[in-house]
C-alpha cells in the first residue's frame, strides 16, 4: 500500500513540471490571435488538424493494431455536414453534429466490419472511402447537376480557436483512455485478441466504441476546417491523403507514445506547410522515403529513438522496445 502511494506521488511529481509547461503553452496559444502575426493562425490551424487526425488514428489503430484507412471518411463526413448545415445553425452545433455523424458512421462500419481480420479490414476501409466519394459525386452530378458546394465562411481566428480546443480535447482523451482500464483492455486486444476475449473482454464492443470515439474528433475537425476552404467537392472532402498522412505521421513519430505521435504530426505538418506549395513533388517524395525508412528501421518511431538514446546516455537500466 505504502509503496503504491509513493509510486503515485512520484508519478504526479513527474507530471507536474511538464504539466505547467503545457498549460503555459496553451495559454500562449489561446492568446495568439490577439498578438501573433496574421498568418500564424492559419498555419497553426492546419497543424492542429493533422494532430487531431493523427491522434485520432492512433486512438483506434495504436492499441488494436488494425490499420484503418477510414480517417478521410470521417473527416470528409464532417466537411460535408458543414457544407450542408453551415448556413442554418451556429458553428458549435454544426461541429458537434459533424462529429456525431462521423461517430454514427463509425458505429455502423465498425459493427459490420471489425470482425474482419488484419488486411481485410484495411482494404475495406479503403474501399469505403472510394465508395462514398464516388457515390456522392454521382449523386451530385445526376441529381443536383453540379459538383461541389459552397461552405459558410468563418473568420480565421474563430477557426483557429475551435481547432485548438478540438486538439486539446483529442489529445487529452487519448491520454486518459491510455491510462484507464478501458485503454488496457484495448491494448490486450491488440496483443492477443483470443486471449482478451477469454478473460472476459467484449472485443467487438471495445473496438467499435473506440472507433466511434476517434471518429468523433475527426468529424469535428472536418466540420471546422471545411469553413476555411469556402468551396468543397467530393474529391477534396474525401481525399485519400487524409487517410495516408496520419498513418505516416504516427509511424514516424512512434505509435506507442502519445508525445511521439503529436511530434510526428507537428514535424510533417510543418514540413508540408513550407514545402508543398513550392516543391510538392519533392515533399511527397521525402514523405514516401521517410515512410519506408520508418517501417524498416524505426519500429518505435522517433519516440523510440529518443527513448533509446536517453536510456543510453543516462545509463538507464532498461529499454522498453
Amino acid at each position, binding site marked *: 500500500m505504502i509503496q503504491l502511494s509513493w509510486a503515485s506521488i512520484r508519478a504526479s511529481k513527474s507530471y507536474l513540471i511538464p504539466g505547467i509547461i503545457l498549460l503555459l503553452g496553451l495559454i500562449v496559444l489561446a492568446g495568439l490571435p490577439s498578438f501573433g502575426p496574421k498568418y500564424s493562425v492559419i498555419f497553426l490551424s492546419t497543424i492542429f488538424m493533422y494532430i487531431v487526425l493523427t491522434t485520432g488514428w492512433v486512438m483506434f489503430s495504436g492499441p488494436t*493494431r488494425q*490499420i484503418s484507412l477510414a480517417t478521410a471518411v470521417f473527416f470528409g463526413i464532417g466537411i460535408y455536414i458543414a457544407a450542408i448545415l453551415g448556413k442554418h445553425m451556429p458553428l458549435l452545433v454544426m461541429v458537434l453534429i459533424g462529429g456525431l455523424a462521423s461517430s454514427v458512421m463509425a458505429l455502423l462500419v465498425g459493427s*459490420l*466490419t471489425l470482425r*474482419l481480420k*488484419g*488486411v*481485410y479490414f*484495411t*482494404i*475495406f476501409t*479503403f*474501399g*469505403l472511402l*472510394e*465508395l462514398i466519394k*464516388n*457515390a456522392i*459525386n*454521382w449523386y451530385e*452530378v*445526376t441529381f443536383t447537376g453540379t459538383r461541389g458546394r459552397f461552405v459558410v465562411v468563418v473568420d480565421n481566428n474563430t477557426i483557429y480557436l475551435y481547432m485548438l480546443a478540438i486538439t486539446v480535447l483529442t489529445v487529452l482523451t487519448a491520454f486518459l483512455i491510455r491510462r484507464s482500464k478501458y485503454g488496457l483492455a484495448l491494448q490486450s486486444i491488440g496483443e492477443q485478441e483470443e486471449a482478451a476475449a477469454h478473460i472476459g473482454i467484449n472485443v467487438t464492443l471495445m473496438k467499435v466504441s473506440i472507433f466511434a470515439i476517434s471518429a468523433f474528433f475527426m468529424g469535428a475537425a472536418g466540420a471546422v476546417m471545411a469553413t476555411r476552404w469556402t468551396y468543397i467537392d467530393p474529391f477534396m472532402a474525401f481525399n*485519400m491523403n487524409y487517410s*495516408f498522412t496520419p*498513418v*505516416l505521421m504516427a*509511424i514516424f513519430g512512434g505509435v506507442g507514445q502519445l508525445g511521439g505521435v503529436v511530434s510526428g504530426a507537428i514535424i510533417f505538418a510543418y514540413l508540408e506547410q513550407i514545402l508543398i506549395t513550392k516543391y510538392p*513533388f*519533392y515533399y*511527397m*517524395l521525402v*514523405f*514516401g*522515403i*521517410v*515512410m*519506408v*525508412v520508418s*517501417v*524498416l528501421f524505426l*519500429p518505435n518511431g522517433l519516440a523510440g529513438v529518443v527513448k533509446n538514446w536517453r536510456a543510453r546516455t543516462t545509463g538507464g537500466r532498461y529499454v522498453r522496445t
Partner: protein
Amino acid sequence: MFVTILDVGIAGLLMGGLYALIAMGLSLQYGVARVLNIGHGEFIMLGALATWSLHTVLGINPLLSLVICAPAGFVLGYILHRTMYKRLMVTSASPGIFEGNSMLASFGLLFIIQNLAYLIWGTRYKAYSYLAVPVNLGGALFPANSLVTLGFSLLIGIVFYIFLVRTRMGKAIRAAAQDASTAGLMGVNINVVLALCFGLGVAMAACAGMLISMNYSVFPSMGMEYTVIAIIVVVLGGLGSIPGSFIGGILLGVLGSIVTYFDAGLALVAYYVIFILLLLLKPTGLMGK
C-alpha cells in the same frame, strides 16, 4: 437488342482482359509473397510512361517495348523484395505483423515512385496513336488496339498458367502460396521464390502498363485507379488464386460494361458496392481457399 448485348459483352471482355492481367500480378504478390502491394498501380504507371517515352522519343514499337519493360520490371521487383520486404520478413514477429508492415512499406513506395514520375515526366497527360483503326465485330466497331490488348492479356495469362502448372518453379510457387514456411522446410528456396513472385508481379504490371498506354492517355497519378481495381478483382477471385483473379477480372470487366451501358457514372460505385458486399458476405472470394 442482340447486337447491343454483344456490344456490351465484347466491350466488357476487352476491359476484363486488362483487369485480369492487372489482378494476376497483385495476386502473385499478395497471394504468395503476402505483400499487399498498394503501389501495384505505380508499376503499371511506370510501364505505361516508359512505353510512351520509348515510342515517342526513340520510335520503338509499343509492343516491342515489352522486351525492355517486362524484364526491367522483373529485376526491379526482385531487388525490392530481396532487400526491403526480406528485411521486414526477418524483423516482423508474426505473419500478421508482416502483412501490416509490408503494406505500409508499399504505401511509402507508392509515394516515392509516383513523385519520381512527376519529376521525370511532369503532370501533363500523354498519349500516342497506335493501331487506332476500327475493326468490325458482329456489327459493332471496336478499335484494333483494344483487341490487341485483350489478346496479349489472354496470352500472358495462359503462358503464365502453363508455367505454374508445368514447371518445377511453378510447382514451388504453388507450394509457397499454400504455406510458405512449410514449403521452405521441404527444400524450396523460399527467399528466391517469394522474390520471384514479387518480380513477376511487377513485370505483369509493366506489361499491363504498356497495353494501357496504347488505349488511354497516361500520367503519373493514373496508378491508384488500377491498384483499386486490382484489389477488388483479387478479393473477388479469392486471395491467392491465379485462375480466380483471371475469372474475376473478366467478370468485373463485363459487369462494369453492363453498368456503364445504363449509367456511366455508376460504374465505379458499382465496383465498390460489389467489393464491400463481397468482403462482408464472402471474404474468401469466388475461388478462395
